[in-house]
């Protein structure tokens, strides 16, 4: 059964990419709806299978690592596969109504969308360093294509900038992979970890790990390498921005985190961990401040992503040189942060798209009066904002609570200030949008009303992000499931 589910999971997005390439936007939409249903069901099935029986290794082509490629299907991976299925299906559904079918270039949206989905799944499941690189390439190129889709000079400029940053990051990562391969003779991450921990191989080099982390941090837009993110995420169509902020940046972070947890203990050091943590903190403060200063609505949301990504990098100092229990707490906190940010940010971008569509302008101050005409979308925006601020009972709160506990328990109290300041600053930029929308004194009474389903989708995502804090326990228990066969 699980073999069928795996085949379905790998096959569907790739096959649907080809199918939708052959038809125009309207037919592609119908085909995509079917594919999304299949993919969500398969992801749910796989999640349930792993939740009941534990994780397993999937040998592609029947070849074992190090000769072949193994997929590591564990609790964390299937959780992210399921998250991707939910968020991508929501974004795809939104896009199918939001995008104008009359524009000839929108037909290419669907194949790129499906390739992006395939790449994300490849990264969550990947257990092979080079295969992860291929997954990253799949994601980056599809994302760049989506940003550039039919765009004018500004969009193309943002897309090229994004492409350059993504390629540079990939190259740094690849160079690190080559060095690791040179030293250990295998590309399997589990194999390298095992060799390093067994101690009979000569101790590893720190430089390859630093190179890989540097490349991945660039792709994740860690401060001060975040310059490419706001233009690309801000100028893309709203469903695309939602996909990029919610899922795409998480893929490179996920690889960095797995490298750190597997190899960081041996190859990393206190200074490196603290440095990454400090950069993450600066990202939180600086990103939030810039989000507060933006005049365009989607730029506010995009800079907020820069800030929220900063939290993720607190994983590095909070898992180095601490006890197993604290490390687990930090990992759980970061995982919750990834999930809750993915749901909240997707909701926020989709709601922002509705608001922009409604008032016909992308400026924050043009929102005046919209609270009366589009309260539903504005409410979704606010609910997502509540999760970003980290107020209870949201997923954001649960995540920050775990991080707080981990930093106190490990004696690294300085991250506390960052966590608190970040919450306050995100409240500031969310309320700024709200303040603009409640001003009544304008003479505009021309509002376009987006269709009901466009408004429902961000609401569902925002509610899921809100409710995540309540179901954090069962979600986390699946992620920490043991691995069948004791592979890890």
């Amino acid at each position, binding site marked *: 059964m699980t*073999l069928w589910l*795996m*085949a379905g999971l*790998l*096959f569907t997005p*790739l*096959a649907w990419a*080809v199918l939708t*390439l*052959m038809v125009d936007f309207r037919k592609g939409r119908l085909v995509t709806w079917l594919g999304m249903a299949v993919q969500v069901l398969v992801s749910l099935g796989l999640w349930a299978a792993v939740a009941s029986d534990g994780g397993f290794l*999937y*040998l*592609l*082509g029947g*070849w074992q690592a190090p*000769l*072949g490629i193994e997929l590591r299907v564990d609790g964390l991976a299937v959780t992210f596969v399921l998250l991707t299925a939910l968020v991508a299906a929501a974004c795809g559904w939104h896009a199918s109504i939001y995008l104008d079918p009359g524009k000839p*270039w929108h037909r*290419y949206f669907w*194949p*790129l969308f499906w*390739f992006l989905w*395939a790449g994300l799944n*490849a990264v969550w499941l990947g257990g092979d360093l*080079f*295969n992860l690189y*291929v997954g990253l*390439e*799949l994601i980056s*190129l*599809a994302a760049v*294509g989506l940003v*550039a*889709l*039919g*765009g*004018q000079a*500004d*969009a193309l400029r943002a897309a090229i900038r994004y492409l350059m940053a993504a390629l540079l990051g990939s190259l740094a990562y690849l160079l690190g992979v080559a*060095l690791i391969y*040179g*030293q*250990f003779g*295998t590309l399997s991450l589990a*194999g390298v970890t095992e*060799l390093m921990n067994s101690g*009979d*191989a000569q101790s590893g*080099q720190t*430089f390859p790990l630093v190179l890989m982390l540097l490349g991945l941090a660039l792709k994740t837009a860690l401060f001060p390498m975040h310059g490419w993110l706001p233009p690309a995420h801000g100028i893309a169509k*709203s469903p695309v921005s939602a996909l990029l902020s919610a899922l795409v940046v998480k893929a490179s972070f996920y690889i960095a985190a797995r490298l750190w947890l597997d190899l960081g203990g041996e190859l990393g050091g206190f200074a490196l961990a603290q440095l990454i943590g400090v950069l993450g903190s600066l990202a939180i403060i600086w990103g939030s401040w810039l989000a507060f200063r933006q005049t365009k*609505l*989607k730029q506010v949301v995009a800079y907020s992503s820069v800030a929220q990504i900063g939290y993720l990098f607190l994983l590095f100092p909070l898992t180095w040189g601490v006890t197993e229990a604290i490390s687990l707490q930090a990992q759980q906190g970061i995982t919750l942060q990834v999930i809750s940010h993915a749901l909240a940010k997707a909701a926020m971008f989709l709601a922002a*798209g509705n608001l*922009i*569509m409604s008032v*016909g*302008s*992308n*400026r924050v101050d043009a929102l005046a009066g919209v609270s009366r005409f589009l309260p539903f979308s504005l409410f979704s925006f606010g609910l997502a904002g509540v999760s970003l601020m980290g107020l209870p009972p949201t997923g954001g709160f649960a995540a920050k609570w775990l991080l707080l506990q981990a930093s106190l328990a490990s004696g690294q109290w300085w991250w506390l200030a960052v966590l608190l300041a970040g919450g306050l600053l995100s409240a500031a930029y969310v309320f700024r949008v709200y303040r603009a929308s409640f001003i009544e004194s304008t003479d505009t009474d021309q509002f376009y009303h987006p269709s009901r389903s466009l408004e429902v989708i961000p609401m569902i995502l925002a509610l899921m992000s809100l409710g995540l804090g309540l179901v954090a326990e069962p979600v986390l228990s699946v992620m920490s499931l043991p691995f069948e066969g004791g592979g890890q």
Partner: protein
Amino acid sequence: MSRFLGITVLAAVCLVFAGALMITVWQIAGTQAPVDLPGLLADNLEASGVEHPITAVLLNFRSYDTLLEIGVLVIAGIAGISMANTASLEDPELRTSDSLLYALQRWFVPLMLVLAGYLLWAGSDRPGGAFQAGAVLAASGVMMRLGGIPMEFLRPGVLLRLGLALGFSVFLLVAVVSAMAGDAFLAYPDAFTKPLILIIETVLTFSIAMVLLALFVSAPVNGAEEPEEGESG
């Protein structure tokens, strides 16, 4: 002054990077890798269906990587044609009427087609294969395009899209059929390994050439017009 400072800092960063890289490579070169992958590869070459290790790795042991890489090429092709219109395919200004080019074309195009076929076949027991053959095929296409030979299939229509996706689709189909036959994704049935690899390589050659050619033909023009959300176009 600030410019000078910038260059100095940049140079220093480059030097540190190169130095660290050199030291690491030097230290790694001095050690024996604990896993002997080439040896393992040689032991399993028999079962792979082809005689050349590189082809065996690309099309059998690590075929999942290759499948996804072809996906990357298809994405590049899609991104290229999504922002271009190729109405200028018949643009007289873009035509060269160079008699030397025509003469060269007459000699080269058939030769290059044969070379592409040879490279494809050579992949089974020596360096060669779909990527090289596809590149040569694309190069001959570029030459024909420069000479103004009409190639209707390169207009962004259904033919172009079929051509882009053909190799990838066949590869994917083989992958999923083997999974449905009860094995893992991409595990070829033992009896058909060689013919399957040959079929995949052939269609891949065609599609790789198509992607490269499509990027060359449709890259320069941008007729798309889409204002940013919330701005009147």
